[in-house]
């Protein structure tokens, strides 16, 4: 945990350092605000990093005004589930890119319910059809959101 926090702090320092370095080459008007922000940010992050290195960072202290992740699940299982859900999220985006939203919605709902949640065939099909119907009615017929065609449709000239 401490190691991860340390690397996260390094990551933020890298961003702040990059921002400071990139901004120095700009005109006064353009760089005024980014530098006014990035320099104090870099300073605070370095202080935070030094506190961590010096062991003065209080471990286990969660942020006030923010949620805590559940700790009831064993770390190994939790890690596996985190990777699993990230996989589904990335898969959803890849599907949207390849097939477009209108096809991805029923396909994703069907696959998730069947493969991840192990729901019975009938319920899965019923939920998929209802979701697709709601999606079509609400976002396409009523709100008229223009969904881009997927890459596959474009390649096929559809």
């Amino acid at each position: 945990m401490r190691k991860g926090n340390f690397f996260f702090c390094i990551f933020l320092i890298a961003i702040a350092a990059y921002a400071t370095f990139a901004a120095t080459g700009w005109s006064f008007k353009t760089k005024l605000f980014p530098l006014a922000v990035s320099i104090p940010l870099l300073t605070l992050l370095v202080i935070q990093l030094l506190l961590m290195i010096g062991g003065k960072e209080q471990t286990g202290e969660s942020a006030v005004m923010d949620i805590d992740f559940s700790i009831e699940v064993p770390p190994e299982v939790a890690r596996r589930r985190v990777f699993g859900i990230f996989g589904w999220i990335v898969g959803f985006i890849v599907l949207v890119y390849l097939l477009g939203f209108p096809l991805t919605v029923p396909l994703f709902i069907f696959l998730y319910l069947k493969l991840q949640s192990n729901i019975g065939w009938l319920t899965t099909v019923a939920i998929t059809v209802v979701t697709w119907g709601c999606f079509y009615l609400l976002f396409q017929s009523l709100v008229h959101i223009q969904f881009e065609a997927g890459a596959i449709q474009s390649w096929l000239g559809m």
Partner: protein
Amino acid sequence: MFDAFIEGLILVLQWKAFSLMLVGMALGFCVGLLPGIGGAATLALMIPFIFKMSPAEAFAFLLGMHSVAATTGDITSVLFGVPGEAISAATVVDGYPMAKKGEAGRALGAALMSSLLGALIGAVALALAVPIVRPLVLTFGSPELFMLSLIGISCITSLSGTTTRGQIKGFAMGLFGLLISTIGQERQSGSLRFDLGMMYLWDGLDFVPVLVGIFAIPEIIDLAVRGTSIAGDRPPENLSSGVMEGVKDTFRHFWLVFRCSIIGVFVGIMPGAGGGVAQWMAYAHAVQSATDSKERGGFGKGDIRGVLGPGAANNSKEGGELIPTVAFGVPGSGAMAILLSGFLIMGIMPGPEMLTKHLSLTFSMVWTLAIANVITVILSLAILDQLAKLTYVRGGLIIPFILLLVFVGSYTANGQIADLIVTLIFGVLSYFMVLFGWPRPPFVLGFVLGKVIETYLFISMTRYGFSWLTHPIVLALMILMVVVIAYPYIQQRRQRAREPAHA
């Protein structure tokens, strides 16, 4: 004056205006529930439909829709941890943990009742303030608004940790949010900043994909990890009594709700600040109401005051935003700018005439805000216990739908796949922020306020050089900012001094 007040009510209660208000409210209800489809965008979509309406009908329709969207946005925030509207993001911080504790009904009851009180206070403020607010708005130039925005960020960052070291992370996150807001074209010179050679970044990052990613993705991950329903394996609360408990909470903390409503009105009056700021300032004030650091540590973990404050401010700011829009034709937000175009379509010029010739129309807006919110809250309270049951549906069934809402919502920002990638990137960032205890609220407020702050800073520097730093109101606001930052330390010291005495 009183005659105009009653005439305003009669205008709203005419069958056509009232029916159109109900149609607007139904639209606003759906828009509020769906993440990403903002109230402002829907206002813009509905503008073409008002051409054949009378002014009173048009404003009943538009304002009915707009005011309700802010109220129902809280429902999605509490139930799924996905902000229904960008302006209801602060409700997620304590509302969703309450849902996880099996108290969704209570959180929803509190959110809706505080929204109603906030809306009524906003409407009263609109009715009372129009004649007297002019000097206040004219006194606040860019330097004062710049300082006011800084106070907003200071409020939230100074309360981000129970210790000094915890606050370093808070301030760092606030600055990080400000830095992210500088991505894209610089408004004054048009120069590109941090665009990484991508045209998508030229306009900067849109609020919706970032906010949805920041708040929704970690909640979805947590839900997937737990493998239970949102409310976990807890026995179902008595949902309807939970809703009533939330309603009672609103009156138990009435003065907090009142103060947060006033904050909402005040922020609403200030051009450019908007609901994104009002909710967080109100949230910070709610956190400040904690008597000691231990109690403050409960915020973010399901403290009812964290739901009441933003709920009240979100809706009271509607009345506040209408004040400069109606009285001077200066819109306080994007939604008000669209509403202003509605005024012009109706052939009405906002300004002094709204206080003389069109006074009854001005009061009809006050009545619309009040009536629309009363009806929405009564209807919502009737169905809340059913909605709260969603938190007991097993996670495996509900996750794909939340993901769908999240990504369709973020896609509506620009209609590009890149919006989804932005949501994912900020979702991952947010996951690590929560995992390692870096607070998200300061980041979000910094991001929301960044462009506004930069514009005010630029105008102040161009117009006054460094002399704006000596303006009396700026100096007063600087002192206030120091007090705001020092307040948690003072509170901690006082508590420490008190503890040995009690021991």
